[in-house]
């Protein structure tokens, strides 16, 4: 920005244009939806004039700062944001106080380098994750989408609230409706931040919303490159040559199917789940059918319903026990997966949520060990934690996510 011409122009403007009652970018004097450098300078000087030289003006320092921000990050234009539910919201100012009802969107904000001080309230599950979200321990706790503390949400006076887009829609719609009815100034955004199909788009949308375009693009590239390499594993392999995978959910003999996210990731990684028939999401499988189908890879899910490992504990032994238990099942010694030593345990922390790309990378590597020999999910995970999440977590000594 060149100050001298601005300064000169500003001298000609002694009275700032009043901020219009309708929403507009602060300082947009002619209200045409574009903040030019001229207008910005005029507004800045008008403020100075009113603050120090007794002139009349009604822009506050915050307004001026916001105007500068809009000028820098959005080229002086209001930003049209389309969230994952298809709704479009126009932003005229940067977001200063965000409330997240989902841990996934909170994590994504951190990945793109958002100033976490501006997150003024989080959901109770994130609040409870001392290891993963240490900086959120003192942030306000607004419950969960099933049991939201609406009063607390209003008390922290957010300008934006993040909710899920495609799951628990009835509950989230209800929260959105109540917020928008009682406090029109609060903007509600619906982002999932855990679905492979939409995550990349969401990263970029949130990044542009929050003025973290550069960092957001870095993260998006990181994510995309990982996903591309995952897809490389199966590329060109016809359906009937892909590895047969038996994916077991937290409960014994329960697999994933249909719309279940874990099924989607199994298929993304290039595996074929022969039990994924029908509409039930977590169908119970007949143990005999497993022996008959003879899967080439077996993957067991732990976490939440089968709570061991994850970020909270460094417990290789527990995962080993679970694996050993499976190997010991009657008839399993004859399954290809057991004979080839391709039975793995994975934690839902890295297979679900915002870190799904890490878990899917592990799956891909297990399914195509030769083609993806150079893929190093462990390194990806560490880079994610250290570089993007910025938490001090050394995978070598803390946490248990996969075994072996």
């Amino acid at each position, binding site marked *: 920005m060149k100050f001298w011409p601005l300064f000169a122009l500003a001298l000609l403007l002694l009275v700032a244009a009043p901020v219009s009652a309708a929403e507009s970018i602060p300082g947009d004097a002619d209200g045409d939806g574009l903040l030019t450098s001229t207008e910005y300078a005029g507004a800045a000087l008008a403020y100075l004039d009113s603050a120090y030289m007794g002139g009349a003006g009604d822009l506050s320092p915050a307004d001026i700062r916001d105007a500068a921000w809009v000028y820098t990050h959005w080229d002086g234009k209001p930003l049209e944001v389309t969230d994952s539910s298809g709704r479009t919201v126009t932003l005229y100012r940067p977001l200063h106080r965000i409330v997240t009802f989902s841990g996934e969107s909170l994590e994504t904000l951190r990945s793109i380098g958002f100033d976490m001080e501006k997150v003024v309230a989080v959901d*109770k599950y994130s609040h409870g994750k001392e290891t993963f979200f240490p900086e959120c321990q003192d942030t306000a*706790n*607004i*419950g969960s989408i*099933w*049991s*939201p*503390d*609406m*009063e*607390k949400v*209003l*008390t922290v*006076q957010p300008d934006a609230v993040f909710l899920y887009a495609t*799951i*628990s829609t*009835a*509950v989230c*719609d*209800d929260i959105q*409706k*109540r917020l928008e*009815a*009682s*406090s029109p100034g609060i903007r509600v955004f619906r982002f999932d931040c855990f679905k492979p199909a939409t995550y990349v788009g969401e990263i970029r949308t949130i990044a542009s919303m929050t003025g973290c375009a550069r960092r957001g693009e870095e993260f998006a590239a990181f994510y995309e490159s990982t996903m591309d390499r995952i897809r490389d594993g199966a590329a060109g392999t016809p359906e009937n040559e892909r590895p047969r995978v038996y994916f077991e959910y937290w409960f014994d003999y329960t697999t994933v199917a249909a*719309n279940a996210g874990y099924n989607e990731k199994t298929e993304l990684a290039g595996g074929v789940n022969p039990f994924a028939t029908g509409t*039930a*999401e*977590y169908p119970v499988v007949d143990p005999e059918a497993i022996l008959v189908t003879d899967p080439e890879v077996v993957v067991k899910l732990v976490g939440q319903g089968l709570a061991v490992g994850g970020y909270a504990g460094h417990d290789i032994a527990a995962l080993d026990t679970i694996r050993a238990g499976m190997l010991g099942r009657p008839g399993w010694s004859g399954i290809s997966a057991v004979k080839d030593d391709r039975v793995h345990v994975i934690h839902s922390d890295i297979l679900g949520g915002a870190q799904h790309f890490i878990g899917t990378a592990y799956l891909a590597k297990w399914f195509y060990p030769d083609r993806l020999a150079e893929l190093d999910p462990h390194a990806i995970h560490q880079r994610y934690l250290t570089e993007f999440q910025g938490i001090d977590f050394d995978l070598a000594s803390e946490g248990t996510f996969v075994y072996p």
Partner: protein
Amino acid sequence: MTGEAMEQNVVIQKGYARLKKTRALFIGGLFTALVILIGVAVTLGSADFTVDESYLAILAGLFPGIFSAPELTKTIIWDYRLHRVLFAVCAGFGLAIAGSVMQGILRNPLASPFTLGIASAATTGASIAIVLGAGVAGGEYLVITNAFLFALLAALAIYGMARYRGIGSETMVLAGIAVMYLFSAVTSLLQYVGSAEQLQAVVFWTFGSVDKSTWPKLAIVSLVLACTVPYLLYRAWDLNALAEGDEVAASLGVPVERSMILFMVIASLITAVIICFTGTIGFIGLVAPHITRMVVGGDFRTLLPASGLVGALLLLGADSIARSVLAPQVLPVGIVTAFLGVPFFIYLFLRRRDA
């Protein structure tokens, strides 16, 4: 009549008058307690207001010219707290009244608004909406209208079955049990078929909560109560007569069959309109009239308003506990009222031993 006899008559009449006065005082006391509890409940919540700030916000909303309060406080009080408190009062009142009517016409002091399967049917309606997405209204009213319609469907089924076999308290109870099992089975099937998330939604609905209250919903429930409760009070003597037995009531001039159906439908309507918004809140409809009867006796002229007030107190008290005990989490109020049932039945059990 001899002078002595007349004197003795007066003694009896005075005894009855004293009884009436005690009951009136009890109702007055209940009303006062309710007003106090409302006053306290309005100040509870996770937003940290002082008592003065809360009341100032209420006044500022009612008389904006004279009082002023911060915008945020007013929003929280008027858009989140006030209607919730009043809704709990109305819902508790309505469920208790429905319960006392049921206990009267079924001649069973352990009957409740849910005895005839209303709750099971409403849950089925809600499940159909949640799992299959099918129903008559769309969007946010899908679950509500389904629950309401299915509850009335249950009432209709009871009526149909009872008409076929003769309308009496026994036939109604048997029909009610059949209805309850039928709808429970359908609900279980839907829960099995649905996804994990839909199952969670259905289970959550059955907990019963006042969370989703809004001013329009409060208006609807109040309207229904305003129309039905005065009529029930007007017919109080018929309810009293029914308690003496079908035959005796008939010989006293009560149109027994018509009245039983009408009262059953009214009680079902009140219950349906409440639980379609809140989900199945249990025990209020059973406990409130039962304990009220122990204090004020069975005359419906006092039993109806008194049990209504007791129900309102119980539900508002339970909701206040639900909001405070695990703050900032809000427990569904139906869980707290379910715990209410335990000491109540233990008490009944102990009393039985003495008698």
